[in-house]
């Protein structure tokens, strides 16, 4: 039986166990909504839209699409974060840039600057400071050149943004085509993200794609479309819906 933890015995900016992390809050700290599991001390949680925070948000959180997913913890105390039983790791960034899956970024120091990545569903951190990220299983680091299943990608540091890679052999093979016809495509073997250049790629065991980030970024593009474009999107959506319903 391990000793019960309290405000004094909790680790300072360290893992409580692989799945929970204790942040020593002293001032302000960005937290993803719903990831706080417990706290000690005088901490208040405010939405980014709160008036008093506008200066902080303007300088350090440059992604309106994700405003609703984040809060700021202000005060003094210990904040314990957890995420779906995933492993949690603290990362140190020194005058660098790192891009991470939006759903896996749990919290970051306001010394860092957050911006939305070009790749949908990912956020980029720039500057110096600490941040917390969760991963399904331990994080595995690989160096480019490497091709990664989009679902297994946790993030990348320093290297240029990835490009899409499509496996022609896979798609051209007869069974691959049949698979696509029956809606079995999209498993990752015909499409990967291709990383080149110097840097590090962070990987996790694959997770189900339930990224609200991708959905939100698609919705954000809708106002750009005209009537003809909207009608095409509607047709595509209807076709996909019919396919999905036929499979159920």
């Amino acid at each position: 039986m391990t000793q019960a933890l309290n405000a004094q015995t909790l680790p300072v900016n360290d893992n409580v166990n692989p799945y929970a992390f204790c942040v020593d809050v002293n001032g302000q700290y960005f937290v993803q909504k719903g990831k706080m599991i417990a706290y000690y001390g005088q901490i208040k949680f405010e939405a980014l839209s709160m008036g008093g925070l506008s200066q902080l948000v303007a300088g350090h959180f440059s992604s309106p699409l994700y405003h609703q997913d984040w809060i700021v913890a202000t005060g003094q105390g210990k904040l314990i974060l957890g995420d779906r039983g995933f492993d949690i790791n603290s990362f140190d960034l020194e005058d660098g840039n790192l891009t991470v899956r939006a759903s896996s970024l749990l919290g970051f120091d306001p010394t860092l600057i957050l911006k939305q990545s070009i790749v949908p569903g990912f956020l980029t951190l720039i500057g110096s400071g600490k941040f917390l990220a969760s991963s399904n299983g331990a994080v595995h680091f690989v160096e480019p050149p490497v091709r990664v299943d989009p679902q297994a990608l946790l993030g990348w540091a320093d290297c240029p943004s990835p490009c899409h890679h499509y496996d022609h052999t896979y798609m051209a093979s007869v069974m691959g085509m049949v698979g696509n016809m029956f809606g079995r495509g999209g498993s990752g073997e015909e499409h990967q993200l291709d990383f080149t250049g110097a840097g590090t790629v962070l990987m996790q065991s694959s997770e189900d794609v339930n990224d609200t980030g991708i959905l939100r970024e698609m919705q954000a593009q809708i106002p750009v479309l005209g009537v003809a474009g909207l009608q095409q999107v509607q047709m595509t959506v209807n076709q996909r819906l019919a396919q999905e319903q036929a499979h159920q």
Partner: protein
Amino acid sequence: MATLEKLNSKMVAAQINHGEQVFARKGAMLSYTGEVNFIPSTTGGASIGGFVGRIVAGENVPLMIAQGQGNVLFGHGGYQVKIIQLDGANSLTVEADKLLIYDGSLTAGTQFLAQGGGVRALAQGQMTGQGLCTTVLSGVGNAVVMSHGPVFEIPIGGGEVAVDPQAYIGHVGAVDVKLDMNVSWRDAVGKGSGEAFQLKMTGNGTVYVQASERKIK
């Protein structure tokens, strides 16, 4: 024979050289370096007879072949992985949906879990929610199985070992598996113990069990 390395509890790396093949569950590739091709496979390395068997048996987990020269990382759905080495003397019997990858040097076949088969076996499979039929891998090479939570090994030798069908992953060796029903009127009215079905195993070998009753998708 491709070289396998377990990177962490949920990932395994396969070093594939020219002329080597690895069969993998479709969608299980996480990343790769080098020149590796992925080809969809319906037969999973089995003969045409085996292929028909797979369809009849409802073993329709789509497979693919990875070949070429490079290093491939495999994992699926955040399930834990375990490498099982086969020396050629004993074969591995595993449920298709719990099989992540296997070496192209192994031969795959299918087998009804409940010996004797027939309508009774069908009914048992339906009632336990377990696959009716399993994949049998034989030869020299490695296979990687998946589990929800860590997998543990129970040796079978002499005595009988009973395993919950939902916790059963697979077994190695000359093992007889019998699906045992212990259904009473309590189960019919939903007041059963929830342990009405058991896999009774006898013989010589090892059974692999996961510490969970969750079905792998």
